[in-house]
Structures are given as structure tokens and as C-alpha cells.
């Protein structure tokens, strides 16, 4: 998919979320759906499998998100899958989140954590990143148990890894 088309879909998702008046919730749900697909290759492959009828792929989306996400979010995901771009949904969602943050004069910061962060932690983390890098960031938390503990923050191409997993890796490397 060319970047122009990817940006177009991202802009479309943002526009729908804004039109529904629930940009924050819908963007957050879409972001979580994108991360869930990125961590589940089989599901991503199923949604992008052209041998499956589109109706069936959309049915899978509705079954998965029916009660866990808003109807708008489910409809938007179903729409992307219906256009045949379900395989690139994580990229579209990333582009949507980055574009949404940019619209709010922020930089997207993807934070991986084993537990959900409190709003206070999110605020303090944003302030800490701003004091460290000078950039206003918009925190998007991704629940990832493989982190074990601590946080992994991705800001663009920069990664700040303070996870227990990294320390275990360092320990393993030191043994090696």
C-alpha cells in the first residue's frame, strides 16, 4: 500500500472518530486493536487472506470486537478489512495515532507495560519524557506481558527500554 493511501485511511479513521465526537476513545480502541493484531500473526493473516470471503473476515472482526469495543471502532475495523487492507491495519492505526497526536501538537509515545498505567503515571511519564527530550508526547499504553516488569517507551525510532525483560537479556548475555 503506498504511503498516500495509508495516510488516507489513517485520516479517514480520525475523521470518523472526530465526527462521532469520541476521538480519544475510538483512537485508543483502534490503537489497541492494531497492537493486538501485531502480536497475533495468525489473526492478521486471516484478516488479510484473500481466499476468505470478505464477509467472513468482517464476521471475524465483529465476533472479536463486538462487546469489547464501540460499534464505531468495530465498524471502522470492519471497513478496513472489507477494503482488503486488513493485513496493514496495524500500520494504518500507527499512522492514525501519529497523525492524531500531531494534530494535537504532540509526539506519539508507545509505552509497553505488563500492567495498566494509572493516569498519574501516564502524566508523570509524559512530563518525564518532555523534561528528558523536550517533546510533548501523547502516551499510548500497550499491555505486553513479555515485558515482565517496568516499561519500554518507543518515540519514533528511539527506544527507552527499562523493562525486566531487558535486564534478563543482559543477565543472559553476561552469562554467555
Amino acid at each position, binding site marked *: 500500500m503506498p504511503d498516500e493511501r495509508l495516510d488516507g485511511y489513517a485520516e479517514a479513521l480520525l475523521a470518523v472518530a472526530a465526527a462521532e465526537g469520541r476521538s480519544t476513545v475510538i483512537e485508543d480502541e483502534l490503537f489497541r486493536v492494531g497492537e493486538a493484531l501485531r502480536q497475533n500473526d495468525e489473526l492478521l493473516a486471516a484478516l488479510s487472506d484473500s481466499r476468505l470471503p470478505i464477509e467472513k473476515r468482517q464476521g471475524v472482526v465483529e465476533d472479536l470486537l463486538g462487546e469489547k469495543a464501540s460499534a464505531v471502532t468495530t465498524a471502522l475495523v470492519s471497513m478496513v478489512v472489507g477494503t482488503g487492507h486488513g493485513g496493514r491495519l496495524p500500520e494504518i492505526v500507527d499512522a492514525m495515532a501519529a497523525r492524531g497526536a500531531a494534530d494535537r501538537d504532540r509526539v506519539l509515545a508507545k509505552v509497553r*507495560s*505488563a*500492567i495498566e*498505567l*494509572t493516569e498519574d*503515571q501516564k502524566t*508523570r*511519564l509524559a*512530563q*518525564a*519524557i518532555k*523534561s*528528558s527530550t523536550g517533546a510533548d508526547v501523547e502516551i499510548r499504553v500497550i499491555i505486553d506481558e513479555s515485558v*515482565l*516488569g*517496568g*516499561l519500554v*517507551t518507543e518515540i519514533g525510532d528511539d527506544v*527507552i527500554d*527499562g523493562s*525486566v525483560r531487558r535486564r*534478563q537479556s543482559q*543477565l*543472559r548475555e553476561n*552469562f*554467555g
Partner: protein
Amino acid sequence: MTATIRRAAGAFGLIGVLLAFGAVPASAVGETIGTCMFDELLEVEEEFGKLKELKKPEHKEDLLALEEDWEKCVEAPSPILPEPDEIIWGGAAFLILFGFMWWKGFPAVQRAMQARSEKIAADLDAAEQAKTEAASVLADHEARLAGAKAEAAQIVEDARAQADLVAEEIQARANEEVAQMRARAAADIESARSQAVSDLRGVVADIAVGAAERVIKSNLDVDTQRALVDAYIDEVADGNA
């Protein structure tokens, strides 16, 4: 040559026969004792008329002369000197025979001898030439034999040198292969040792890290998780992350 000699011998034989029948022997033409004495009596009768006259004293010397003549007739001929007529006939025959032989026989014999000598010389020359040729052939064979021996020796020497070279190459190749095998074996041993050490380290790391993970997981309750998050936020704020 042999025919010429035979012809000459035949001519000599013929001449001898002619001379033998043509010549009168001295005994045939010469006087016998009786005729000699009879001739002497005839001479006495011619001189004195009758033989009785000699008995007379005045003819005593004539009688003595007659007796001497008779004694001469009785005397035997010389065993050495032939009669003159024999000498004449024999000499003539000899001269004729000698002349004939000088005229015919000697040239024939001389030609035969010359031919014989020439043949012997030619045979000697041929023998000498054959000897020379044989010597040349012998020398040539000896030269070839020497050349063949030298060539054989050279071939043997070359073969020995080639064999030595091949042996050296084989030895060098074997040494090189042995060195390579040793190097490979050493490398294999080192690789195996390194792999064993690495595997052991991996096992130890797995055990240690696994134990650590179990300890960490058992201790990572919600409060600990939040404490870790707070510590991370503080580190980022301090710029130590």
C-alpha cells in the same frame, strides 16, 4: 691357369720324346771293344800290309803302340764324361729344350705365377678389406653398444631421478596432508571445546536466568510492578534511562 700349365707340360713331354728317339746313343754309334780293336788292326794292315810284319823287330814299337791302342779299347768308358757325340746331342737337345721352354714355358709359368700372385694379392686385398670392414662394423657395433649402454644408463638415471622426485612429492604431499589433518583435528578439537564451553555457558545461563525469572515472577506482584514503573519514570525524568 691350370690349363696353361698343362699345355706347357705337354709340350715339354713331347719335346723330350722327340729328342729321345731322334738322338743316337753313344753306345749305338760308338765303337765296341771288338770293333775298336778291329779298327786298329785294319789301320795296321793298311800301314804294314800284314799283321805278321809287326813281329819283326824293327816294328817292335809299332807293336807296342798297337797293344796300347788295344788296351785303350779294352779300357772302360769314363763314368763322368759322356761321349762327345752324347754331349753334342744332349747339349743340342738341352739348348733346344731350354730355348723352347724359354720361349713358351717360362712366359706361361711366369704368367701363371703372376696371375697366381695377383689372385693371392687380390684375395689378400679382399681379405684385408673384409677385415677392415669387419673392424669397421665391429667398431660401429661397439659404438652403438656403448651408445646403447650410455642411453640405458641415462634412462636408468632419469628413472631413478624421476622416482626420487615422485617420492619426494609424495612425501611432501603426505607431510602436508598430515599437517592439514593435524590442523583440522586441532581446529575441530578447539571448536568442540569452544562449543562445549558455549553450550555449558548456555546451560548455566538458562539455569541461572530461569531461576532468576522464577524468582522475579514470583515477586512481581502489582505493587512491585507499579514500583518498577515509578522507578522507570524517575529514571527517565533524571535522564538516566
